[in-house]
């Protein structure tokens, strides 16, 4: 379900960065005086390992076990969100699984929507039947998270598929594969209930803050929609145009005859590209030289 770099328009990526910062920041605030348990570490590691197995979905991103609901159930929503966010960060930084610009969106889907929804469903349903509650939390959690992911990429113009494809594709695939997620979630919960029931103690959450986060989740698609309308899909290019950098004096100074007379502009671009690369190479050698003259361990 990880969205890589390049799938999202920057405006959409940006709005989800902001939303995720808010909720994650609040979670950190709630956790400020707590010590991270070994369960936290091991569960993060286990979820990390379980997410290894994934395969691509044309028209979407990928499908795999997510574990957001499980994290929410075992750690509570705040620590669960933190655990998932950390798994996503390590995956981005070590494997490139999930983009760095898409980090906000990925955290939103898997660490916030999935965790909070899964936690809440389990708390509500486990009053009636613990295992069924865990199953539904696992299944619905991943499906809704996938629908959010589908919405984000579908709304982005860089990703050529429209909403009418991405949402059904992501949603349906995950609704089917989510059954496995549900089974695993219920299985782990049932297993721990018999061996280490202390790990399943109810985690307290404030009602008001919980409601606020729910509202944020519900409204997030609307924020994203407006961000897409307002934002430029290619802000940097627009910035370049706005600054009229293409005709700027700095640039002319560097390469006065950008369109060398008699050459067609395409070759001109090619040449200036080549010159750029040459300069990059020279600078790289300069870095290497600086390294060889610095002595440290």
């Amino acid at each position, binding site marked *: 379900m990880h969205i*890589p*770099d*390049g799938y*999202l328009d*920057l405006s959409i990526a940006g709005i989800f960065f902001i939303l995720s910062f808010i909720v994650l920041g609040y979670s*950190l605030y709630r956790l*400020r005086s707590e010590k*991270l348990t*070994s*369960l*936290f*570490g*091991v569960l*993060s*590691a*286990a979820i*990390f*390992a379980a997410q290894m197995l994934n395969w*691509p*979905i*044309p*028209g979407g991103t990928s499908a795999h076990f997510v574990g957001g609901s499980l994290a929410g159930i075992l750690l509570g929503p705040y620590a669960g969100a*933190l*655990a998932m966010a*950390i*798994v996503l*960060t*390590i995956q*981005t*930084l*070590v494997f*490139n699984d999930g983009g*760095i*610009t898409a980090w906000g969106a990925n955290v939103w889907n898997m660490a916030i929507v999935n965790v909070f929804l899964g936690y809440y469903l389990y708390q509500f349903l486990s009053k009636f039947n613990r295992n069924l509650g865990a199953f539904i939390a696992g299944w619905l959690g991943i499906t809704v998270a996938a629908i959010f992911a589908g919405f984000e990429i579908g709304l982005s113009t*860089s*990703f*050529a598929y429209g909403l009418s494809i991405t949402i059904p594709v992501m949603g349906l695939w995950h609704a089917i594969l989510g059954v496995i997620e549900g089974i695993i979630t219920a*299985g*782990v919960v049932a*297993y*721990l209930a018999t*061996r*280490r029931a202390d790990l399943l103690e109810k985690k307290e959450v404030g009602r008001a803050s919980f409601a606020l986060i729910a509202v944020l989740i519900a409204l997030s698609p609307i924020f994203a929609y407006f961000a897409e309308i307002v934002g430029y899909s*290619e802000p*940097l*290019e627009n910035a370049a145009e706005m600054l009229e*950098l293409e005709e*700027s004096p700095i640039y002319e100074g560097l390469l006065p005859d950008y369109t060398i007379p008699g050459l067609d502009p395409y070759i001109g671009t090619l040449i*200036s*590209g080549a010159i*750029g*690369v040459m300069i*990059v190479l020279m*600078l790289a050698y*300069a*870095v*290497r030289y600086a390294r060889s*003259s*610095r002595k*440290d361990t």
Partner: protein
Amino acid sequence: MHVVLEKTLKNASSYFQNFLIHEYGVRGTLHAIDARVKLLSSFSFVILAVSTFDLEKLLFLLISLLAVSTVLGVNLKSLFKRVWLFTVFSFIVVSPFLLQNPEYPFLFTLRVLITLISLQLLVMTTSFAEICFAMRSFKIPQLFVHALWLAYRYILVVFQDIVSILLARESRRVAKGSHRDLWKKGGEAIGLFFLRSIERAERIQLAMASRGEKIFEMRAKVGMLEIIYITLSAFIILWWLAL
């Protein structure tokens, strides 16, 4: 079936384990540069890549990054090993557009490839501790970085355990076994492994307690090397804008 499954799991685990520990032995120029500088420049390159569908701009960026990698001591072969998977992956995802708009899948995949390379310039040359340090100095909350560091360590432990347990199972597998057992025993085995990892982690927690839990702060290094690398990155950005 279950034998194949175990084998796959073992291969996958050792594969990912290698991913997690980079070649600490080989140290190129990029390794020496301050992690914060690398973090920022890699991030900028990613932004550049995802901000355009211009073939010229993308090619300029790709060739520049490859040039930087070669000169500054990133092995192109290992770089390729780390980026091919998600590149192919992305191509498959957008391949249905091949007939309708043949340029798009290639440009799209090229963008993804560049973002992957940009990040690898950081990941392959920086230890995880340095990355954590860089995050701390960008004022990312202590708790988050601490959790990141903790999880990273447990991931190493868990992967190592998976590999050794699978070897142990192999050493005492004297019959092929039946498929029926897969579901019955498989679930139990996973649950047990999870429990065991938790209790092992509890002991590692003791080891950390006995030696102090403060995540260490590394010293920043900013010198000529960093300044020239910043210049290099700034040049790439400017030229990209101008192209």
